[in-house]
């Protein structure tokens, strides 16, 4: 009996179309049956999914240890915050601007350090992220508002009377962006770029000697990853209406790192699962009150014990671990 039902399960979910339809149905019904609080949780799930996808480019696809990703996220958020509050530029116009700013920043800071390997690259990205955060706290040129941050960021306007200002609208905004990113990233995965990235991850020396411009593709991953994190920063800033350096700590970078590893390196469905674990578990564990973060830590350890390759590892080839 069990075998039959499991076969049915396989047949239903084995076809990607059915699974997708089910997900879409849930996606559209969900915000209309739950309260704003749960819609907001789903919104933050979306933000973490986007950030996970952005780090997945660097860490999952190319295997570069980036523990300073919150720095790029911060650049995106602060670009939006400063340009919107000082010059009144609309949020959605700033969306590509934030992406560009974060991408450019990544290009500038990563160019000199891209030759570093493994843990040395890791600590340099940590340092980069911390420098960004500390610089924001120190309020250079009176732009970032110091530890308090920047207040009074607008809602995104779609033109005319259409303004995104409720939880449910933000929910659709972030998930539409996540969906578009996923489509784009799936296309990249199957392209020359994606194959070059994976090749570098599996064996950098072999990739270089096969004519792949290792430096170029690594930088490309950093720039794209940072740009996507910048997009997340833009939405996050307008949702919160204020940004402060506390949101962009080393701890956040560690969470993004966990999203990618819990889900499975380089796997896009995995990233979604990882983001769900990171954003939903602290909520699920709320009844444990002050013990909840302890349980959260235990969950992380257990997941790595039982699914060391991630919950949904990339199918196409064996994920390589050093």
């Amino acid at each position, binding site marked *: 009996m069990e075998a039959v039902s499991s076969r049915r399960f396989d047949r239903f979910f084995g076809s990607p179309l059915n699974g997708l339809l089910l997900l879409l149905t849930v996606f559209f019904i969900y915000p209309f049956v739950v309260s704003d609080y749960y819609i907001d949780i789903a919104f933050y799930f979306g933000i973490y999914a986007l950030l996970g996808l952005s780090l997945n480019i660097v860490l999952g696809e190319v295997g570069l240890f980036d523990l300073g990703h919150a720095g790029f996220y911060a650049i995106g958020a602060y670009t939006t915050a400063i340009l919107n509050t000082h010059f009144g530029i609309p949020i959605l116009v700033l969306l590509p601007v934030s992406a560009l700013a974060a991408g450019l920043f990544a290009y500038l800071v990563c160019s*000199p*350090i891209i*030759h*570093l*390997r493994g*843990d*040395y690259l*890791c*600590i*340099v990205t*940590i*340092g*980069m992220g*911390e*420098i960004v955060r*500390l*610089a924001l*706290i*120190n309020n250079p040129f009176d732009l970032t508002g110091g530890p308090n941050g920047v207040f009074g960021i607008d809602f995104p306007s779609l033109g005319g009377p259409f303004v995104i200002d409720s939880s449910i609208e933000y929910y659709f905004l972030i998930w539409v962006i996540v969906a578009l990113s996923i489509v784009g990233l799936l296309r990249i995965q199957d392209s020359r770029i994606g194959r070059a990235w994976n090749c570098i991850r599996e*064996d*950098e*020396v*072999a990739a270089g000697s096969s004519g792949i411009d290792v430096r170029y593709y690594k930088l490309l991953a950093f720039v794209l990853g940072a740009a996507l994190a910048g997009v997340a920063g833009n939405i996050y800033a307008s949702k919160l209406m204020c940004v402060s350096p506390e949101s962009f700590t*080393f*701890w956040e970078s*560690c969470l993004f*790192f*966990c999203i990618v*590893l*819990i889900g499975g*390196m380089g796997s896009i469905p995995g990233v979604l699962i990882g983001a769900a674990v990171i954003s939903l578990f602290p909520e699920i564990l709320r009844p444990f009150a*002050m*013990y909840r*973060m*302890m349980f*959260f*830590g*235990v*969950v*992380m*350890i257990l*997941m*790595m*014990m039982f699914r*060391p*390759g991630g919950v949904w590892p990339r199918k196409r080839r064996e994920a390589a*671990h*050093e």
Partner: protein
Amino acid sequence: MGVFLEQLINGLTIGSFYALIALGYSMVYGVLKLINFAHGDFFTLGSYIGYTFLVFAVSLVTVHFGLWGGLAVALVVAAASVALVGIAVERVAYRPIYPAGRLPAVVSALGASIVLQNAIMVIWGPRYQAYPAALIPNVHLQIGNIHITLLQVLILVLSFLLMGILYTVIQRTTFGAAVRATALDRDTASLMGINFNRIIFFIFTLGPALGAMAGVMVGMYYRQISFVMGWNYGLKAFTATILGGIGNLPGAMFGGLILGVLEMFGAAYISAAWKDVFVFLILILVLIFRPTGLFGEKVAEKV
């Protein structure tokens, strides 16, 4: 000149905290190639156990050993208890995950760090705790026009003593040779009859114990401890480890001391608010020009 020397001594004091913590990172990394994110929390835990000991038990101890003896026993108690915790964390959170590779172990280490940090918060409360001022020597020394405290001298002497002992054990004894051999090539070392589990036991007792002692010293030096401080000290110590060349013990010691001195000079001569930025910039510059740290050996990439 007086200010310069004072800042140098202040820097060395902080640097010796970083160095003691960095040794734990470096030993674990050397043998397991694992960045032990929970290490900063071992440091915090040591600080809190030292605090509890000083608050509740020191009057009992001082009767037998005197005030100095009491402080010394506090250090030993903190080191011993945190060493036990270190072993426990290794057994529960790391050992089952080694075979899966390095990256899952990083997540597990972060999980262990969250558990420890929140356990400390649950046990001792989320507020700052103050070390009992009456128990800590508050003697100021003046040499020429340099003002330092007796506590700083003691911290420096003790840290250098501990580092010296560890260095001697690692570099001069047979057991130290076994540790180095394991760090170099675990499989070959095992074939030569080195018990890998004993090496693990050693590094996961000694590393956390050194971190715990640094924690107690930080408590005495700054008088104030908080449950999140391990994160910051851990990050600095990890930076120090990389600065010196990861897996290289003398490198970790010098990296810590250099980092502390840089931080103090940055605070004194550039700007207190930008001192950490200064430290990280120096780190990045060093790594751009010496990609394996100041004392790291040139290792050919394996193909």
